[in-house]
């Protein structure tokens, strides 16, 4: 074994804070250390060249660099190793900058610590073993679940001569909710007609297979190689099976049904309708009461179901304001009163849109304890505002603007993909900030309202984010390289207690019922090491973080 | 008075460390609680004072100790291992099985007065010490472990250096080199053996002879007592299957004992069938299998050190039984476990012209 140890001066950064010669003196005598040298800037072109030459010159079997954080230049130095035919995993980086040189003004102390850290790295590297990147064939095709705006957008962007998209829609038609919207807010651009156009392009796209009246039966496998079974709900039932490399869950959301909340009088009182009813009426061209007359006065009730569901859908206010525009256009003289609990008008152009919609026929009332009752041929609204209680207002028409709730019946998808559902029933992203459209299962993404109530604008950008992910990670004809530093279970030591299965949150471990031992699927494993610490038999090793590697680093550090 | 013999031995060791003959010594030492002795590897000369080359018990067999220090490599330190003859022999057997790297180890044995049963000592250390001191003085081993009482190799030299106490003048010992390594040690310390060993040899011979008698007598009785399947099963039926004997045994070096492995575990209905054949099945069924099986695995290497019996929670006469079997199996191949490092393990070699008495007469 011939270990080369190289200490980076990092310009003045390390050189001025650490007595590098002392470090060299301490490391030289260690067993198996063939050479110890300092260099002004190892991450520079010269630096990399220098390392490369050293590896050749001394026929090094292992490399240790004492420099900056592994988060800075680990990859840089691993690449150097690879070029020189030294397995990059026979390398260890000691962080003597961020966590040593920069944390104290006491040069002596910094030097002592630098020595400890470098020795620890040398001790650790001796237990490193070469690891080989494995490559697996991958299928570039994609399954998109949900034919709403998110699903359609993703499908259109992904589909191509080398990538077939399987677009699965539960209902009989594509388009989802937005196909009923005449216009979008805040720009009041045509929506329904636009969606129609999209649906046509989807249908005409030879690389998109559309399955309507179809549900997901099962999703097996892992990123790059999923096996899908779908079931047609039409009679006679038929199932189809195909393979894809990634899955996009765009199952959308549905408006909350106010029927069961008596105070709104929905389905009991004439001319009390929901936002969706109103969109459809508006789309049909005429806004009228049951009796065919245009409404003289309309009340729009915001925040319907917000209390019951416990969240604000952040779009109800906006589409309610859009309704004002519909009304102003189609029944200009009508009096419009908006009842809200909190007004939610986020974003760069929404405020402007709101202000434009105000006018002498438009009122906004912040209300509480609202009650809707029938009053001869009119509808009476009883409410309290900031000042006084039980005020009354009678109108011809009431539009209820309900919150959005997650689509039901996702269990088969959730179970077979092992993605998780938040307490409100929306799908959970892998990480709110750093991975908002990925899920805990690699290769399974979420877009649109399945992830939470969203405007069309946000839905579109999520769909695009997902496409970006897939286009860059699932390239036709290219193999995928799964994580190398994964867990491995020794068949001879495993006693089959399934402890590891219980703690693994990626479903990366399966049980071999014949041999009664656990087995890691190295393609699914993310290499966190949870199972390793959980296994009492010490039957599991996490590659590159084995017991001995960590232990000897520890031992040398506290020496 | 024997106390000072201990001092003599320790002075020798410390001197050797000063001269750099050894960097470290592997030697027994009393534990802080004072209720037992364990092996300690000492680098700091001063600590040798607290060691005891001839402790009253053998809690860990020295062969195991040497193995755990050198199994993974010779290391950079020259180590002197001070042990009893049976421990040196175990070390040699382990070397033959690649469990010991002898390169940097000097094996030093001492005339052995025997040791007390471990359990007796730990349950009452003060008394134990007194008893042992007396026993040493009077050369009376009736209080020692049964297997020590029938040990005919208590002065056998199988290491590099031997310390003879029998027949030595007050406070002095015989230093007997038994290998090139041993001679070098004596030379560098200018202790090249001139004096005659006659008095030592004489006493050793006497001791060995009457031990041999005792040994064969005891074995005869034992054979009566446990001979035959019935008796054998009865003797071992009290066994708790804790396998402490195997774990304490220096020459049972397997990482996972065959009898702890999956191989001995059957499917449920097999156990039922076995039970139904006999009406009753003692559970687990393989206690006797374990002991007989272990004999086939290690009896040719058994050094009759008695560690197994010390470790047995139900005081089965394991060591005595195994010493009896060992004499038989080793006799077959004119082999004595650990006597000689060069001697190949009987099971790793063969002679074309041997054991014909075992085969049917060919005609």
């Amino acid at each position, binding site marked *: 074994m011939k270990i080369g140890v190289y200490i980076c001066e990092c310009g003045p950064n390390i050189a001025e804070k650490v007595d590098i010669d002392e470090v060299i003196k301490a490391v030289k005598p260690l067993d198996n250390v063939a050479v110890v040298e300092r260099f002004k800037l190892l991450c520079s072109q010269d630096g990399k060249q220098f390392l490369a030459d050293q590896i050749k010159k001394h026929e090094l079997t292992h490399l240790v660099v004492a420099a900056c954080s592994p988060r800075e230049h680990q990859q840089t130095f691993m690449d150097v190793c690879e070029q020189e035919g030294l397995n990059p995993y026979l390398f260890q980086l000691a962080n003597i900058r961020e966590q040593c040189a920069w944390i104290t003004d006491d040069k002596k102390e910094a030097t002592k610590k630098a020595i400890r850290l470098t020795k620890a790295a040398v001790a650790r590297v001796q237990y490193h073993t070469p690891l080989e990147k494995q490559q697996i064939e991958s299928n570039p095709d994609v399954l998109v679940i949900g034919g709403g705006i998110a699903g359609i957008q993703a499908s259109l962007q992904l589909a191509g001569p080398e990538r077939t998209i399987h677009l699965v829609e539960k209902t009989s038609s594509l388009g989802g909710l937005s196909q009923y919207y005449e216009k979008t807010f805040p720009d009041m651009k045509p929506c329904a007609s636009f969606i129609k156009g999209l649906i046509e392009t989807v249908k005409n796209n030879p690389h998109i297979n559309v399955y309507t009246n179809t549900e997901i039966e099962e999703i097996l496998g892992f990123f790059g190689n999923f096996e899908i079974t779908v079931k047609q709900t039409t009679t006679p039932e038929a199932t189809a099976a195909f393979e894809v490399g990634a899955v996009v869950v765009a199952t959308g959301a549905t408006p909350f049904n106010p029927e069961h909340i008596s105070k709104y009088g929905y389905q009991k009182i004439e001319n009390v309708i929901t936002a969706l009813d109103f969109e459809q009426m508006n789309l049909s061209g005429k806004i009228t009461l049951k009796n065919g007359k245009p409404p003289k006065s309309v009340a729009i009730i915001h925040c319907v179901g917000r209390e019951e569901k416990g969240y604000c859908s952040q779009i109800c206010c906006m589409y309610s304001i859009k309704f004002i525009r519909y009304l102003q256009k189609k029944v200009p003289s009508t009096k419009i009163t908006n009842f809200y609990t909190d007004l939610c008008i986020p974003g760069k152009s929404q405020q402007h849109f709101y202000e434009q919609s105000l006018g002498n026929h438009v009122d906004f009332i912040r209300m509480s304890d609202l009650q809707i009752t029938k009053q001869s041929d009119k509808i009476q609204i009883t409410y309290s505002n900031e000042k006084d209680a039980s005020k009354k207002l009678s109108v011809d028409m009431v539009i209820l603007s309900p919150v959005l709730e997650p689509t039901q019946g996702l269990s088969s998808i959730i179970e077979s993909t092992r993605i998780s559902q938040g307490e409100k029933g929306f799908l959970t992203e892998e990480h709110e900030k750093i991975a908002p459209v990925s899920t805990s299962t690699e290769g399974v993404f979420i877009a649109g309202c399945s992830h939470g109530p969203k405007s069309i604008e946000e839905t579109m950008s999520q769909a695009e984010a997902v496409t970006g992910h897939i286009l860059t990670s699932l390239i036709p004809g290219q193999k995928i390289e799964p994580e190398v530093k994964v867990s491995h279970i020794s068949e001879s030591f495993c006693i089959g207690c399934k402890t590891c299965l219980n703690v693994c949150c990626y479903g990366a471990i399966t049980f071999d019922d014949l041999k009664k031992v656990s087995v890691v699927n190295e393609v699914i494993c993310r290499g966190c090491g949870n199972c390793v*610490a959980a296994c009492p038999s010490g039957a599991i090793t996490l590659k590159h973080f084995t017991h001995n590697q960590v232990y000897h680093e*520890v031992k040398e550090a506290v020496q | 008075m024997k106390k000072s013999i201990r001092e003599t031995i320790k002075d020798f060791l410390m001197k050797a460390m000063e001269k750099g003959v050894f960097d470290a010594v592997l030697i027994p030492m009393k534990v802080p609680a004072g209720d037992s002795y364990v092996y300690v590897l000492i680098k700091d000369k001063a600590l040798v004072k607290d060691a005891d080359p001839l402790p009253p018990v053998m809690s860990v067999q020295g062969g195991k100790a040497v193995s755990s220090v050198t199994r993974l490599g010779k290391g950079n330190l020259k180590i002197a291992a001070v042990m009893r003859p049976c421990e040196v022999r175990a070390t040699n057997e382990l070397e033959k099985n690649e469990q010991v790297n002898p390169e940097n180890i000097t094996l030093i044995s001492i005339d052995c007065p025997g040791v007390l049963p471990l359990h007796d000592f730990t349950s009452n250390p003060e008394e134990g010490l007194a008893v042992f001191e007396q026993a040493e003085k009077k050369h009376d081993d009736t209080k020692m472990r049964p297997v020590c009482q029938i040990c005919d190799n208590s002065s056998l030299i199988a290491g590099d250096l031997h310390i003879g106490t029998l027949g030595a003048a007050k406070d002095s010992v015989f230093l007997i080199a038994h290998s090139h390594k041993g001679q070098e040690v004596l030379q560098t310390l200018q202790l090249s053996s001139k004096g005659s060993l006659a008095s030592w040899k004489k006493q050793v011979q006497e001791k060995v002879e009457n031990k041999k008698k005792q040994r064969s007598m005891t074995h005869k009785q034992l054979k009566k007592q446990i001979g035959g399947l019935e008796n054998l099963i009865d003797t071992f039926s009290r066994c708790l299957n804790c396998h402490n004997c195997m774990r304490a045994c220096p020459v049972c070096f397997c990482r996972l004992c065959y009898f702890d492995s999956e191989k001995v575990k059957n499917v449920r209905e097999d156990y039922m069938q076995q039970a139904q054949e006999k009406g009753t099945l003692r559970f687990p069924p393989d206690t006797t299998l374990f002991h007989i099986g272990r004999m086939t695995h290690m009896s040719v290497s058994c050094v009759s050190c008695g560690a197994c019996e010390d470790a047995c929670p139900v005081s089965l006469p394991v060591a005595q039984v195994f010493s009896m079997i060992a004499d038989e199996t080793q006799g077959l191949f004119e082999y004595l476990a650990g006597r000689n490092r060069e001697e190949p393990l009987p099971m790793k070699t063969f002679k074309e012209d041997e054991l014909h008495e075992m085969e049917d007469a060919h005609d």
Partner: protein
Amino acid sequence: MTKKEEFTPRILAFLCNWCSYAGADLAGTSRLKYPTSILPIRVMCSSRVDPLFLIRGYLEGADGVLVAGCHPGDCHYQEGNYYARRRFAMLKNIFESLGLEKERLRLSWVSASEGQKYAKVTTDFTNVIKDIGENPAKSKIFL
């Protein structure tokens, strides 16, 4: 007191790669000062920290052991830190029951943006350790 000054503890810090190690780096890049007694050991997730590492570290003579990971709910690997927390709680309890100074063990959640917190945690942990004094296991032969 002077005795206390002389003694520079050796404190192992098991840091998860995604949050706490990044947090520690941030402390450095923001040039925050904290004791050099901290010896970082990088692991991918706090859930990789086998209680045996802590036990061994302690028996090898570490004066203190810090385990730091992502905040609950923020684990890069979903739930790893919840398991880490349970294992840590158990080990700490074992230490307490055995009359070993449980103050030598510490668990802390440090995010990638909490350089400040990291510096603070390490500083006052070091002071705690200085008060307890050296790890007696260092000098024990019969371990």
